[in-house]
């Protein structure tokens, strides 16, 4: 009896193949990140709209999709946001199955640390909202926090001692590259054309509707256009002269050298500007502040490397002496109320915008794509997206997300 090898390196096959650029598509999506890929995937899978092109100026996952710290959770502040992110959190399991691709969802739970009375009150209110909506979330005392996160300093030695924690068991970590590859595989299998290295240089209109996009691979005409370019969304909208309440800012992240597994949950602290988790390789992946000035670069700086080391060592003194191996940066497109903009028929018929996700763009990717696909396929705004219209900023009806417990900088 011969034993078949379960995995044959010689039979490795591409997940998806490049397609020739056609001059016309029903739907063109600008941005080959998770949001654009998910929208294309759901357009083809759910709505049978397969005449779709996805344009990516670099390579898929070049932007925020491959630069985030991979944390997923649903403990937002307001009901409309919690509902959306909760559905998004539940999608990882079904997507893993549906795409037949291991997204490596590690359901380890997240712990937010509070360092003041005000933070504890914010935790109580947030936990009430979460529990009311059926999302698991509970308040922990410092001792319980230390049991979850070994090495956490809960003494009053800290400049801002830990008062309480907000534990959110449904959260965790997802391998962000796998999401990009899995969605690309799924979208391409349903007939979506993915064009990498295709830079959008301009957008053509006839005054009332978008007629096509000018790209480095020639002009591509379309009936419907989706701008899902993550941090670059504001720059793409500027090609049409559209002003948005969006500030693109760089946010930096870094990893230490690998350590034996000891950190079994994601933890974060608003006061110290730290969120950290241990990757499957053993590195501590940790993220930091945003640079204050609007820009479209991916520049990392030594300034935040130093800050991050100080903050991590303050909270977890045992990490002293551990070295950072890599630092990188990505873009966060910040809105004034920390909630996204999902809009259709924006100035032109069948022009759709999915932007302003700030640093929440990764965890929301698949669910945003699902609803944007509904919106683009029908032209009608789905009920779920009513809270995320652009006009809320012109009517002074900001979302209450700024009261969330994860406060990182002066933008929140």
């Amino acid at each position: 009896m011969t034993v078949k090898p379960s995995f044959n390196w010689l039979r490795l096959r591409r997940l998806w193949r490049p397609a020739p650029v056609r001059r016309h598509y029903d739907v063109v999506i600008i941005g080959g990140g998770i949001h654009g890929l998910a929208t294309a995937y759901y357009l083809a899978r759910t709505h049978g709209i397969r005449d779709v092109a996805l344009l990516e100026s670099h390579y898929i996952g070049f932007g925020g999709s491959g630069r985030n710290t991979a944390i997923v959770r649903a403990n937002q502040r307001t009901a409309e946001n919690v509902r959306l992110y909760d559905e998004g959190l539940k999608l990882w399991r079904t997507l893993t199955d549906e795409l037949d691709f291991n997204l490596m969802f590690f359901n380890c739970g997240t712990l937010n640390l509070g360092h003041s009375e005000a933070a504890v009150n914010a935790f109580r209110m947030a936990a009430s909202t979460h529990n009311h909506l059926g999302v698991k979330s509970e308040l922990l005392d410092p001792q319980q926090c230390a049991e979850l996160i070994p090495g956490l300093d809960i003494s009053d030695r800290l400049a801002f001692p830990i008062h309480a924690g907000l534990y959110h068991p449904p959260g965790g970590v997802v391998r962000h590259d796998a999401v990009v590859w899995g969605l690309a595989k799924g979208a391409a299998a349903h007939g979506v054309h993915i064009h990498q290295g295709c830079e959008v240089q301009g957008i053509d209109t006839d005054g009332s509707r978008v007629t096509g996009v000018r790209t480095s691979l020639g002009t591509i005409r379309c009936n419907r256009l989706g701008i899902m370019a993550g941090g670059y969304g504001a720059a793409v909208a500027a090609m049409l002269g559209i002003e948005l309440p969006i500030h693109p800012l760089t946010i930096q992240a870094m990893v230490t050298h690998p350590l034996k597994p000891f950190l079994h949950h994601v933890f974060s602290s608003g006061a110290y500007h730290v969120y950290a988790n241990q990757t499957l390789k053993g590195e501590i992946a940790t993220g930091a502040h945003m640079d204050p000035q609007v820009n479209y670069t991916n520049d990392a700086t030594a300034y935040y490397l130093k800050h991050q080391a100080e903050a991590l060592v303050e909270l977890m003194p045992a990490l002293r002496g551990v070295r950072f191996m890599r630092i990188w940066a990505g873009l966060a497109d910040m809105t004034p109320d920390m909630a996204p903009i999902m809009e259709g028929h924006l100035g032109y018929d069948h022009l759709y915008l999915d932007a302003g996700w700030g640093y929440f763009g990764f965890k929301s990717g698949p669910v945003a794509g699902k609803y944007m696909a509904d919106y683009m396929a029908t032209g009608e705004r789905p009920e779920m997206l009513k809270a995320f219209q652009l006009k809320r900023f012109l009517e002074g009806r900001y979302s209450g997300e700024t009261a969330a417990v994860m406060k990182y900088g002066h933008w929140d």
Partner: protein
Amino acid sequence: MTFRLTCPVCGKRDVYEFTFGGQERGPRPEQDELSAEEHFRWTQFRMIPCGAQAPPQEEWWYHAQGCGVWFTTRRDPGTNLEVVGDGDE
């Protein structure tokens, strides 16, 4: 990669000495008869193009950890660098 800005008093200094004050928007509109929509457009809505054709952005900075002066400069959001006259830094 960090970069430097030119303070009119202190000269070129590291960007982390400064506080970003946002895009120059011209004078604040008169409050009398200002609609909510016009108010929010002026305070929050921006156009921030990117690319070779995009003009540098005129913006405000505050030398918080230096001499304390507010000033405007022109910077390219695509490269982060200050644009002085015709050439770069």
